[in-house]
């Protein structure tokens, strides 16, 4: 399996495209008495772009073959922890491609898009109800953008109050986006350690709280899959000193319909519609990151908000205190529509069932892995996990030298996608596994068997494992070469320049 680069397949002179009304171009030049070449002057591009052109059949074949060398949940399990790779209903793809959505211009008069606005309005109401928040902004295009929005809201909230709070508390088990987002909003990050039962260390938290504390960013259940059972106490502590709680919604899947972030005491949250609500990940995006708030924080949400007056839906641009816009227009409409469909089809009860099934799947897998040598479940193994679990392969590494990465590659070799590895950072040789409710029992059992067999293989022949994967379209890749200043090659252009003799180093 290998497929040439498009640069090897076509040349800039080729084109597989027929442009519309091409027969009119000559007439237009005549009527205008001018050509762009004449009029653009010094702003005229002097040569055709170096973009190879392919015929339609070549384009189709190229990308069809590339797709066959790719792997998504429609191929097999992708149990990446904290990524919630659930099934993406096909009907959502159909509907999101409806011309009555795709062909709408963002500046169309609201009266001409009432159907879509109604969908977005219902979605916003549903998400608020499901999370116990008052209002949501659909604008944020990804979870991280939601976090940034939330952090900026906290920042502006205290600016407006004249309070100089510049510290954001973040547990050491948190997603990397939390500290990154806090930093982008200008906060100093104060790291809170995890106690040995896998939750926020309350003593450390007490020690960290001060008049500089703006808030805390938490995900609950946390990245160990453990529910922060002292969440109400944490909320009280923060609120009592006037600080706020931000909820990272990446881990909502195991508790939706069972307990609400709003009821836990969170003031601002974001939701990942492409994780929890059935919209696909697209190999990295597009996502949709919806940010919601309670009480006076609503005023700070990015604008516009979807709203309704009488029977009419509209965008509310009112922004006395708001942080402004996080991106242009209203959000990533396609995943928003898919989330609408997902919730519409399941209803509250279906969402709750999905959450419970995802937690059953997690704990069933834990039960299957019980007693499998080489792996351990750190942080209170008796406690049920929620959407995900984190195994440590430290025992196996100590015994055989085989690492979490080697295990990951051995899974790929079996045609199974690896879990998230080396995260959270507080677990050595971490394997962070999330099956979601979609994964059939058979697949979960197969996965447990695979991990067991890999451990057995590691004891028999550890060095062979280091050579995997072999059954994938390509063998294990060289990360040093990939990142070395003198070989790093992010584009064909750089390769071309090197081939032309330039010494390019980064």
């Amino acid at each position: 399996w290998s497929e040439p680069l498009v640069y090897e397949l076509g040349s800039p002179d080729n084109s597989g495209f027929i442009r519309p009304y091409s027969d009119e171009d000559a007439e237009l030049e005549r009527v205008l008495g001018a050509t762009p070449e004449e009029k653009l002057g010094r702003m005229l591009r002097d040569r055709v772009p170096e973009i190879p052109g392919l015929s339609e059949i070549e384009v189709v074949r190229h990308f069809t073959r590339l797709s066959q060398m790719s792997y998504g949940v429609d191929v097999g399990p992708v149990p990446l922890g904290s990524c919630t790779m659930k099934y993406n209903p096909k009907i959502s793809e159909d509907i999101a491609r409806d011309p009555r959505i795709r062909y709408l211009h963002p500046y169309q008069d609201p009266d001409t898009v009432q159907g879509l606005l109604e969908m977005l309005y219902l979605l916003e109401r549903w998400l608020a109800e499901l999370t116990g928040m008052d209002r949501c902004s659909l604008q944020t295009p990804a979870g991280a953008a939601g976090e940034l929005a939330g952090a900026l809201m906290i920042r502006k909230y205290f600016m407006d109050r004249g309070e100089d709070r510049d510290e954001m508390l973040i547990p050491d088990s948190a997603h990397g986006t939390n500290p990154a987002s806090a930093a982008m909003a200008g906060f100093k990050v104060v790291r809170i350690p995890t106690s040995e039962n896998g939750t926020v260390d309350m003593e450390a938290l007490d020690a960290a709280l001060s008049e500089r504390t703006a808030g805390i960013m938490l995900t609950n259940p946390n990245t160990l899959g453990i529910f922060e059972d002292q969440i109400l106490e944490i909320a009280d502590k923060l609120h009592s000193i006037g600080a706020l709680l931000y909820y990272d919604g990446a881990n909502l899947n195991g508790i939706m319909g069972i307990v609400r972030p709003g009821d836990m005491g969170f003031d601002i949250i974001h939701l990942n519609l492409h994780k929890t609500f059935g919209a696909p990940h697209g190999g990295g995006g597009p996502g949709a990151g919806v940010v919601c708030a309670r009480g006076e924080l609503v005023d700070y949400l990015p604008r516009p908000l979807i709203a309704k007056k009488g029977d009419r839906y509209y965008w509310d641009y009112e922004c006395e205190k708001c942080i402004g816009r996080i991106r242009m227009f209203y959000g990533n409409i396609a995943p928003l529509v898919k989330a609408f469909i997902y919730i519409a089809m399941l209803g509250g009860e279906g969402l709750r069932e999905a959450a419970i099934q995802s937690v059953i799947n997690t704990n069933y897998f834990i039960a299957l892995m019980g007693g499998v040598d080489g792996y351990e479940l750190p942080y209170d193994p008796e406690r049920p996990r929620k959407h995900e679990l984190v195994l440590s392969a430290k025992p196996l590494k100590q015994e055989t030298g085989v690492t979490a990465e080697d295990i990951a590659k051995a899974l790929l070799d079996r045609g199974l996608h690896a879990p998230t590895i080396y995260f959270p950072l507080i677990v050595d040789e971490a394997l962070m596994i999330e099956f979601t409710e979609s994964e059939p029992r058979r697949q979960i059992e197969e996965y447990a068997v695979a991990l067991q067999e890999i451990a057995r293989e590691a004891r028999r022949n550890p060095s062979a494992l280091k050579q995997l994967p072999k059954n994938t379209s390509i063998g294990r890749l060289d990360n040093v070469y990939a990142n070395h200043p003198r070989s790093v090659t992010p584009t064909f252009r750089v390769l071309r320049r090197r081939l032309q003799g330039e010494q390019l180093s980064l």
Partner: protein
Amino acid sequence: MLRRIGIDDVMELYKDVPRKIVLEKPPGIGFGRQLSEWELRRIVDSMLRKNKVYTDPPPFLGGGVCFHTIPAVVDAIVSRNEFYTAYTPYQPEINQGLLQAFFEYQSLMADLLEMDVANVSMYDWSTAAAEAILAAMRVTKRRKVVVAGNIHPERMEVIKTWLLGKDVNIQLVGFDRETGRVDLEQLENIVDNNTAAVYVEVPNFFGVIEDGVDAIAEVAHKRKALFIVGVDPLSLGIVRPPGSYGADIVVGDAQPLGLGLNYGGPYLGIFATRWDRKLVRQMPGRLIGLTKTIDGKEYGFTMILQTREQHIRREKATSNITSNEALMAVAAAAYMVLLGGSGLRELARSIWLRSHYAAKRLAEFEGVESPLFGGEFFKEFVVKFPKPYHTVHRMLLEKGILGGLPLADKPPLMDDCSALFCVTEAHSMKDIDRLVEAIGEAL
């Protein structure tokens, strides 16, 4: 499965959730019960019927986003489920296809811009511009930013939001009311040794192509500020690419490259830089690179320079971005190679011809200034009417025509007689004539 777990009741799995906040019953959302696909389709259809789609003629509405045609093959490709149901390819060996497609997007975009490095997407043009400014501040360690006053007003808002948490001084440069172009003199006065970056859009909000880009680059570089350029990538079929006039960072939106309108998103934020250690190391977002297998026998693709990213660097990351618009990058890559360099040029020419035809025809009406600005334009142009435009707009709507964007409430113009029209390859001469005729009746 419960037996194997060792419990009788699933709620035992939630025993660590404080009793008092456990919901007694599922939330009352959705439509009251699980729906079949057919029931859902009927509900959705009843909603979508309330939307009005303009295809005959296609919208003349501009404002940074225009109606372009989407080749069917692009849709077919992004409908491949191996692509769209994949996660970020953290495990390269099982996702070579996706990674190669991303690498090809980066390469094609770099060649279109004549820049060396392009990432595999930002959310959209506006956040790319904001992140470019943040990157420039990190690179230069300066806290003043100079922004052209004729950029898209929503992008201006986004930039301000993203800089909210930073101690930064944003200064706007005015524009020439005749040409619509950046006031170069004013620019020269504002840019100083504290300036991190100068941000200009080509074409700008008015569709006007800045032809002073070489001079702007010189001004910026003289003060060791970075020159950030925002572009419509489709214009680059005929317009000089920013790599040819000294841009340090290029941003933009690849929406015109086969992505469709989608009522505002998902689009595809472009972010590209020159080959420069600092610029690349301060780049936000995901980069794919060429590499070899550990046995050195084969070439392959993998994520590179991840140490910039949040999942490794946490609060020291160049950005918090992780989910992006990757699938749209596959679409844009397919679009670009379907057209090829020559096809892109022909298409850009056709858009130039059609938009100029429309501008010229509208200028035939007495009292109409079309285009309002004298600077050479691409695709979009401002038309000033002898009466408030909203009445014209409403009459057009009644005839099934979606006219230009009213500029009454849009900075930087705020003129209730003006509107921003957009004409693309989708508009036949007959479509344009219909618009002109309808406007004639409305005047």
